[in-house]
């Protein structure tokens, strides 16, 4: 029997190696391309290993005195600003809502909750037209406000769902104890529940941030001025003119991915917990 068990274990290892190659090789190739000159990248057969590696693509993108770098850094700042605002506002709105969904039984509670969840189901593209009109009406077209508001609503259902899961795991007796100890309902929430829900808030924040950072469709539609663009749209416009600058594009793509990957690696535990929260109940 142990022979068969080993057989399965070996199959698992082989599978892992294959899937690791499938995942990593494209990313490695991206990195290798990004340190080639444009001439070196456009060869057939390809240079498997860069003969003259160069960081020129990166220095160009990160140099504010260079027009390309200036634009790139501006896009990055825009992305950061929009994502951070989305995250902060999202948490501020989601925390009370999730707490209420977890703690109170009020008429329509279940209905409201599913209304919130269903928001997840609708694709961005079909909401583009009405939201465009709405933003035009609100006078937000061409501002970052339009994006922040939109991302907020896209993130909210998930944030509320995640946070509700965290609040469900905080025993109600803790709040009761606090109220007996002399806290008001709000103090009990602020002093006892909030500190305990920090992991939940972190988890939701990562989600909001990464979602906003990566968003393309609304950013491409709502923004029109060059200096407002966020990264996903920005690098597209940027390289459409020099469609053949693949090493530059790969470098830009890499730099665009760095913040989310770093954020993900640091807060991996919360990210994974957030992903699986709710779907897995023991």
């Amino acid at each position, binding site marked *: 029997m142990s022979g068969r068990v080993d057989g399965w274990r070996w199959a698992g290892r082989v599978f892992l190696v294959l899937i690791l190659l499938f995942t990593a090789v494209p990313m490695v190739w991206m990195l290798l391309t990004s340190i080639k000159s444009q001439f070196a990248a456009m060869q057939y057969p390809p240079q498997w290993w860069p003969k003259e590696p160069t960081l020129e693509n990166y220095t160009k993108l990160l140099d504010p005195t260079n027009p390309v770098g200036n634009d790139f850094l501006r896009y990055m700042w825009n992305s950061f600003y929009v994502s951070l605002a989305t995250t902060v506002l999202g948490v501020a709105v989601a925390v009370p809502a999730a707490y209420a969904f977890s703690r109170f039984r009020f008429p329509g509670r279940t209905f409201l909750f599913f209304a919130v969840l269903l928001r997840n189901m609708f694709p961005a593209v079909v909401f583009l037209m009405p939201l465009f009109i709405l933003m035009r009406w609100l006078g937000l077209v061409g501002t970052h406000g339009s994006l922040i508001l939109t991302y907020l609503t896209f993130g909210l259902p998930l944030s509320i769902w995640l946070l509700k899961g965290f609040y469900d795991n905080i025993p109600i007796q803790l709040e009761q104890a606090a109220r*007996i100890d002399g806290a008001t309902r709000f103090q009990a929430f602020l002093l006892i529940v909030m500190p305990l829900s920090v992991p939940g808030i972190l988890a939701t924040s990562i989600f909001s941030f990464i979602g906003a950072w990566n968003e393309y469709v609304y950013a491409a539609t709502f923004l029109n001025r060059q200096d407002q663009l966020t990264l996903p749209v920005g690098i597209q416009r940027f390289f459409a003119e020099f469609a053949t600058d693949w090493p530059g594009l790969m470098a830009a793509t890499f730099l665009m991915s760095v913040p989310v990957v770093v954020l993900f690696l640091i807060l991996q535990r919360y990210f994974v917990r957030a992903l699986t929260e709710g779907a897995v109940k023991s």
Partner: protein
Amino acid sequence: MAKVTLENVVKTYGPVTAVGDVSFTVQDGEFVALVGPSGCGKTTTLNLIAGLIPISGGNIRIGDKLVNDLDPKDRDIAMVFQNYALYPNKTVAKNLAFPLQMRRLPKDEIARKVAEAARVLDITHLLERKPRELSGGQQQRVALGRALVRDPRAFLMDEPLSNLDAKLRVQMRTELKRFHQDLKATIIYVTHDQLEAVTMADKMAVMNGGTLQQYDSPKNVFDHPVNTFVASFVGSPAMSLVPLRRVVEGDAVALAGDGWQMPLSPANARKALSAKSDTVILGARHSTIALHDGPREGAVPGRVYTVEPTGDVTFVQVHVDGAIVIASLAPDVAVRSDTNVWLGFDQSRMHLFDCETQMALT
């Protein structure tokens, strides 16, 4: 400390009545145990007194003050929860300090009171630990400490010992009792374990299905249960209850089973005659039943079902007329299963209940 009064207190959740019309008064300094089976409304009653849930009807007073609409923080009571409800992200010291901070006491006074409470409960060496680094018994002490640090008008405790292992439970029981005596504290103590109630409380309030069944001293509840529920709930092993036929011949009244009759004493005859129907429930505790190996005058025939030696006494379960009666024997007396025995009931210590209302006949 203060007295606590409940007047016709009601709590409903939609169609569910969790607590229905409960009234009792806990005198200043009294230790009252709220007992009853799981789901009978004990926690709900306690939460109503604490103000954690809004009351649906009736009045609650602490001291002479009506507190129906007061926030928990303004009722000045302390509470110990079943799962301790220690703040997991705070150290023991911070847990103890929290109620004092909420009341805006000066820092040095807080420190002094925390140290004092820790000393009394012997948890000084634990002050810098987090709750999850404590054993169950230590957590229990901290929870108690958090109630102790300020002197509230009353202590509410919701099954505070039920998460401890048996040995620790007995030990804490003694300590709690001692603590009550020293502080002369008003304590309302919820438990589903009638033994805890009997051993610790000045009075016990027996609840079932959201209503108060009996409110009296443990001795009176034990000796004079008002109905069959209380009779079978309080005392271990439970009081044996046997439904029997009432037979009246002239002045003589007897209880009859399958092929036998037990004449009743005049006092018991009077009780039996007040029953609404011809079926009367005979109740007897094991210690009031004598076991004979042959027929006797007034003894009731039965067949031994099981024999359970416990060391101190041996409990014998006997089939009588389709019901089980538990009697006790000295451990050195030998009985075997499936033998015939005769049970002698002590007429002065037996109970009679009306079969229709389940109430005690008096």
